[in-house]
């Protein structure tokens, strides 16, 4: 069999069969969606549009099939199907070849708001908020292996922290930012204590319940939270300078103080820059944590809890720290979300959000930081780009998930971490 392939590398017939099969599938998928157009009270059949899409799919599949039969293609296929799963341990002094990309990204991110439109800016802000959420949940699920389905509760605590703090205590964005992280961490500890003995499915159900409790309280405590009507959130300010056209109470708005003309997207540029700094900070902290004993302990806990306890690890501290650090990150994200929207209501904190964040973590590769960042942008920016297909967003999701789990069961970016050696290093 293998010699036959070697002698005749191009099996055209096989590629043709592949193309026809792909064409049939695309006909089934796109036929009803693209081909039937509702016009008033009657349907119009748009055969040519379907034919074009199917034609493109068939051609593409044919080309792909041919390519995969070349030596290069086969090598690629082999790398896709490699069964070498698991965490890849790098040498302790390993330096990535892509190190130069980080300063470049920072520079791009800093000059980006100058060129971006307000709309693009809001999309990227949303993406960054989900990066924060993904990074936080990644600690709980990816590193410590505790499946948390109610993660959105901490996000809600952050967002409502800002809304309620402004309404009742007159607190602003900057005061609430650390307070919300603290409050979310406390809530994480509160959730952590009763679930210390639970694992897997049971833990998932309890956290799911916790998430729903928070949402229902926000929804039904009308006098305090405004219920489904939501609450308004103040705009952030910079050193007391507001980003509005005219400041309240005779104050000086930001643009007048610095002497340039008013620009409505200034508020978003400000949020973007602060958010970007916070994301960088969280990334750095996370990077350090995975190299510290507590990061090791989280991973050990995920791998084998009984062995952990036999090693003398205090599993209570380890679990609680994972819950609290994860939750505080979500609290931060919540504050940004609230001030970006200018308004919060319980509809933003449904179970679907939790599932979305979990999808980001799983898609990105459990425990992988770069993967989570990529996945967060993919899953938040892609629906924006595909606005016209908005109703199919969840379908897209499902397809993406299934494909991922088949080809990349360990996530987009394979988790790799640098090994640890004793301080002085063992002689070889």
């Amino acid at each position, binding site marked *: 069999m293998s010699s036959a392939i070697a002698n005749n590398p191009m099996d055209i017939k096989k590629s043709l069969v592949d193309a026809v099969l792909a064409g049939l599938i695309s006909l089934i998928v796109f036929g009803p969606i693209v081909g039937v157009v509702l016009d008033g009270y009657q349907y119009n059949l748009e055969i040519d549009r379907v034919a074009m899409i199917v034609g493109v799919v068939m051609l593409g599949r044919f080309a792909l099939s041919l390519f995969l039969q070349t030596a290069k293609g086969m090598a690629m296929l082999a790398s896709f199907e490699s069964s070498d799963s698991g965490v890849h*341990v790098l*040498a302790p002094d390993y330096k990535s070849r892509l190190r130069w990309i980080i300063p470049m990204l920072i520079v791009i991110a800093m000059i980006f708001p100058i060129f971006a439109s307000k709309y693009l800016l809001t999309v990227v802000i949303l993406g960054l908020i989900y990066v924060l959420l993904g990074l936080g949940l990644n600690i709980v699920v990816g590193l410590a292996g505790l499946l948390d389905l109610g993660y959105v509760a901490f996000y809600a605590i952050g967002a409502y922290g800002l809304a309620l703090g402004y309404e009742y205590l007159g607190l602003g964005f900057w005061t609430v930012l650390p307070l919300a992280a603290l409050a979310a961490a406390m809530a994480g500890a509160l959730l952590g204590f009763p679930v210390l003995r639970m694992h897997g499915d049971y833990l998932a159900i309890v956290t799911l319940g916790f998430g729903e409790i928070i949402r229902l309280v926000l929804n039904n405590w009308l006098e305090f939270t405004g219920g489904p009507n939501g609450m308004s959130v103040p705009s952030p300010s910079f050193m007391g300078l507001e980003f509005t056209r005219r400041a309240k109470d005779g104050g000086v708005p930001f643009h007048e103080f610095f002497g340039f003309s008013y620009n409505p997207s200034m508020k978003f540029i400000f949020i973007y820059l602060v958010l970007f700094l916070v994301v960088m900070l969280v990334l750095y902290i996370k990077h350090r944590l995975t190299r510290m004993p507590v990061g090791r302990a989280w991973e050990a806990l995920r791998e084998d809890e*009984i062995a952990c306890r*036999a090693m003398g690890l205090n599993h209570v501290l380890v679990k609680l720290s994972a819950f609290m650090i994860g939750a505080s990150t979500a609290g931060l994200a919540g504050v940004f979300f609230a001030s970006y929207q200018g308004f919060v209501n319980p509809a933003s904190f449904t179970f679907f959000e939790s599932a979305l964040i979990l999808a980001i973590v799983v898609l990105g590769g459990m425990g992988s930081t770069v993967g989570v960042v990529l996945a967060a942008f993919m899953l938040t920016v892609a629906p924006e780009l595909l606005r016209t297909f908005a109703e199919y967003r969840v379908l897209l999701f499902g397809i993406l998930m299934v494909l991922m789990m088949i080809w990349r069961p360990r996530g987009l970016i394979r988790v790799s971490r640098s*090994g*640890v050696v004793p301080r002085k290093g063992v002689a070889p």
Partner: protein
Amino acid sequence: MSEPLLELKALDVFYGPIQALKQVSLHIQEGETVSLIGANGAGKSTLLMSIFGQPRASAGQIVYRGTDITHKSSHYVASNGVAQSPEGRRVFPDMSVEENLMMGTIPIGDQHADEDMQSMFELFPRLKERRNQRAMTMSGGEQQMLAIARALMSRPKLLLLDEPSLGLAPIVVKQIFQTLRELGQSGMTIFLVEQNANHALRLSNRGYVMVNGEIRLSGTGAELLGNEEVRKAYLGGH
């Protein structure tokens, strides 16, 4: 006789309504190798785990170096010089050999990690060959060596071993028991829980035989090896 390193006094342990240990008393002197043999389900592993408070004893007392540790938490026991290599090895599958060994230093910190890792590689040369390999990808015998080495990394006063021969080829079992003998001769106190009575008793200064949650017999290793009842029940007429 000096005070024993570890002493169990009339220990009762329950799993729900089922009594797993009935009035178990035993003691281990410093520097001794003591083995506990018994059939499947006799309560051997339960006894070992109850030293770590998992499950907790409902009656009786566990005294370690003069301190009552009956109600202490697992990590307290582990960080005070009792190390164990749990049943079924339980190495961290996704960590390399070196990282697994590093995990063993948690109770004492990593100030001796360098020299200790070196001496583990001398004790188990196979581990040195595989130092950067993930634990999951090693053979059962190598994983068992790693589990023992990991336990030793915390410089324990008392080493608890739960069935180190479980599921291993006879030649590997021989190697591991040879290493344990060397360890014992170097002064380490070892408490060995085993089904493989022949190997265990030859290695040990003293032994206990457990049947249905009770200590049925005790004596020196040689005495038990010569005992008719033990020969019939555990040694299959060897």
